[in-house]
């Protein structure tokens, strides 16, 4: 008997006429690791909530079809009983913690189940130990880092000892290191402890290989479910971006085997290119030389000279930062949490004044009034797009900024709405839009003044691969027009694909700065999956398009391998998903 059985499930959120889920039929076995992926609004989170019993109980709305859990219809199950069997961890750790103390938070679910004190103590102790939370057991939840908070959220669910663990994008708000930690725990829970795991996720390069089965959703429907390799092929066939780069590379090759990890990918590539290894040398110096000549000719937009900064009563956050960013550059600033990236951005936009050192914007030193002197020239998008949204309509949101700066040309509003594909939502309340659309509205609200400098803090956090790609292309276009784009991100794949220059920060210092190939191509840990795949085989490759360009001819020269494997010669770019995302 399957653990979950879903039959013809259709669901409408209250007040909507478009179904969030359409005719879903699905079975999930006990002990399975099911990865659910798809774009924003594809219905994946809704499906997770149905399986957790939150829809329609918590959300209301209309539901059709049936969902069975261990043979019994889920809606007939007592809520307490269901919570003992199915646990759910949500996307944002900040929004699922109830208590102010770590230990109390872990016990919260147990108290709700009405368990006796001895049982609660035992379970709390076990979970604290398993999740390695002992050092922070007595700490205030507010003082934890994002990664620790998500670990705590997971721990508080695990304490309830469910059979099934449903995770809705549990790593989307975390930095890569914390995300890895959460995924490792989930892997252990599935492999060593037999938990059934249903994970909704967008960071596929880290979890695709963990899944027994991948479920690809679009428009409220399941468009593909099968093994990871089958999922990759189907996504590529449909031109969808929801495939990790290595799998997409080989799926585009029509390779009979679609590897899902870098290790498998490298083995396969080496077997294809036997005798042709290390065929190319990195051309980083040439690229570097050319870009340096071009850079030198351009005007400096932001220049930081020996900048030091420390918060009152805190440690030094920025240490002797010198950075010169030119007109038309697209710069990605990478680094771990606490490296000082966001503080650096605030210094650049004049929200903070350096303790020592000087900051020049467009050749003028930023004075006492800081942000007031440069804000008309600068668009700054913070980590949370919701911080920008409070007007009745999307259009009003843009007009608010224009009014503040005394601008009257409404043509700018039309233009920016058009460019960010927001025209259909002009009269809609921004709070009624999806997260991706909200981000575009927030971006429009700061771009409407026509700034020359665009600064974004973690714009890819929680954004699906399709929207991320759209954003990347938009920013590239802006840079091509001569605007300067600076993005702080943890997303190495995004930086490698779209930025031209990469700055790496560590503990308040810049440890690497240069053309992206020079910085990311040499890094082992801060390099995109494609670069890891090609290292030592075809150095200097960072992006999917570069891999196609460099390896395509080599693989075409070895037709025997592919013909033998697939029965036909692979043709690059034949499938829709083979264009770079």
């Amino acid at each position, binding site marked *: 008997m399957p653990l979950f059985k879903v039959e013809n499930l259709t669901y409408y959120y209250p007040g909507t006429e478009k179904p969030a889920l359409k005719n879903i039929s699905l079975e999930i076995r006990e002990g399975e690791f099911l990865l659910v992926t798809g774009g924003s609004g594809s219905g994946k989170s809704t499906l997770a909530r149905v399986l957790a019993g939150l829809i329609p109980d918590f959300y209301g709305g209309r539901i059709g079809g049936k969902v069975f859990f261990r043979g019994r219809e889920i809606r007939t199950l007592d809520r307490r009983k269901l919570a003992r069997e199915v646990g759910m961890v949500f996307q944002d750790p900040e929004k699922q913690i*109830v208590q102010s103390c770590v230990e109390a938070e872990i016990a919260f679910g147990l108290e*709700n189940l009405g368990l006796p004190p001895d049982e609660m103590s035992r379970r709390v102790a076990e979970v604290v130990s398993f999740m390695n939370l002992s050092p922070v057991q007595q700490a205030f939840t*507010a003082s934890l880092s994002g990664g620790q908070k998500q670990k705590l959220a997971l721990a508080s669910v695990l304490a309830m000892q469910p059979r099934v663990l449903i995770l809705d994008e549990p790593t989307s708000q975390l930095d890569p290191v914390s995300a890895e930690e959460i995924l490792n725990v989930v892997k252990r829970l599935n492999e060593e402890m037999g938990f059934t795991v249903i994970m909704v996720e967008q960071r596929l390069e880290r979890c695709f290989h963990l899944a027994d089965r991948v479920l690809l959703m679009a428009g409220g429907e399941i468009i593909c479910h099968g093994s990871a390799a089958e999922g990759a092929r189907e996504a590529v066939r449909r031109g969808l971006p929801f495939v990790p780069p290595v799998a997409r590379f080989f799926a585009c090759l029509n390779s009979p085997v679609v590897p899902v990890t870098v290790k498998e990918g490298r083995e396969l590539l080496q077997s294809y290119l036997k005798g042709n290894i290390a065929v190319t040398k990195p051309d980083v110096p040439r690229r570097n030389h050319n870009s340096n000549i071009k850079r030198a000719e351009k005007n400096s937009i932001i220049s930081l000279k020996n900048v030091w900064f420390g918060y009152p009563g805190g440690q030094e956050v920025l240490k002797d930062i010198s950075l010169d960013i030119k007109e038309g550059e697209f710069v990605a600033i990478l680094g771990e949490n606490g490296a000082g990236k966001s503080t650096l951005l605030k210094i650049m936009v004049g929200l903070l004044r350096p303790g020592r050192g000087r900051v020049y914007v467009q050749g003028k030193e930023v004075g006492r009034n800081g942000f007031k002197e440069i804000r008309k020239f600068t668009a700054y998008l*913070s980590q949370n797009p919701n*911080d920008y949204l*409070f007007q009745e309509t999307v259009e009003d949101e843009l007009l608010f900024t224009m009014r503040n700066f005394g601008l009257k040309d409404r043509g700018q509003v039309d233009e920016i709405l058009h460019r960010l594909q927001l025209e259909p939502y002009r009269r809609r309340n921004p709070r009624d839009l999806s997260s991706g659309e909200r981000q575009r509205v927030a971006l429009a609200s700061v771009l409407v003044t026509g700034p020359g400098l665009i600064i974004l803090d973690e714009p890819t956090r929680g954004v699906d691969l399709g929207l991320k790609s759209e954003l990347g292309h938009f920013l590239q276009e802006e840079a091509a027009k001569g605007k300067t784009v600076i993005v702080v991100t943890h997303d190495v794949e995004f930086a490698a694909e779209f930025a031209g220059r990469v700055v790496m920060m560590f503990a308040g210092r810049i440890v690497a700065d240069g053309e992206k190939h020079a910085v990311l191509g040499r890094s082992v840990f801060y390099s995109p999956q494609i670069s890891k795949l090609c290292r030592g085989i075809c150095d200097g490759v960072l992006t999917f398009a570069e891999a196609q360009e460099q390896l395509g001819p080599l693989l075409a020269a070895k037709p025997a391998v592919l013909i033998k494997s697939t029965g036909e010669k692979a043709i690059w770019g034949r499938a829709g998903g083979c264009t770079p995302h």
Partner: protein
Amino acid sequence: MFNRLFYREKGLFLQSFHPATVLVYLLVLLILSLIYDHPLYLLALFLLLALLIREVDGLDAWEGFLKAGVFLMLVVMMVNPLVIRAGKTIIWHGPAVPFLGKLDISMEAIYFGAASSLRLLVIISIFCLYNLMINPDRVLNLFSRVAGKSVLVITLATRLFPTMVRDLQRIREVQQLRGVDFDTGSLWQRAKKYSGLYNVLLLSSLEDAMEIAESMQARAFGSGRRSVYSRNILRPRDLFCLGGSLLALSAAVWGLRYGYGRYSFYPEADFLIKDGTTLAVLFIVLFYLSVPLILSKGWKHCRFLKSKI
């Protein structure tokens, strides 16, 4: 910057008491600070509190609390001699002032003002010690059994407060960069600008509240009768401390019945030390109140005591 004023887990002995014990102990200190008039008794309480605060590594925080108290202290010390006419030893004949009459400053009024200020500092120090010694979450946990839902609401508010302060700062920065100047314009214009700021915060908080509620529902909140997870352990140290507190209170009440701890400032101030019993009673009360301090020292320096408490 205000972090040092609030509770921080430092793993200190004085932070390991059961919250009920700490509440009783501090309540006794508060009662004594209110019922004692004798400057010597108040001074002794102040010194005891100073030692306790030092023991919880809180001199920094105490400084913060005292800074706030000094202003009030100066007000009391200045106003009292101006309005009180009961003192006999006049040290300055001032001019006649409308409403207040003739300004005769007496030594007794200054003395009373100083003693009242000392009482104020003692009370402030008690609250400082509360902040340093006791995890507010544990206090709430103590009341979970009798008022579960109210406690949960308070806990949620406590939990969300720092987040909201942080959010507000971020939203303010965002609006400043969108051209809003919070420090310019008429009062009405400024109020309008701030209303926009709080509007964003309110909208986001409402959305966040839905997500928190969903997470609570997923963890079976409201699915039936709840139990209470108590993280508080009662140890021998708590019994010693509770015993000490009750004995100190009893001794103080006994003393007060016979006038030890009372003090009259007007028309002429009493002797500071009337007789030996004044000191004996003070010593006994102080000894019982010093139990946590003695235990803390014993915990550090006496292995035998450490193993027993």
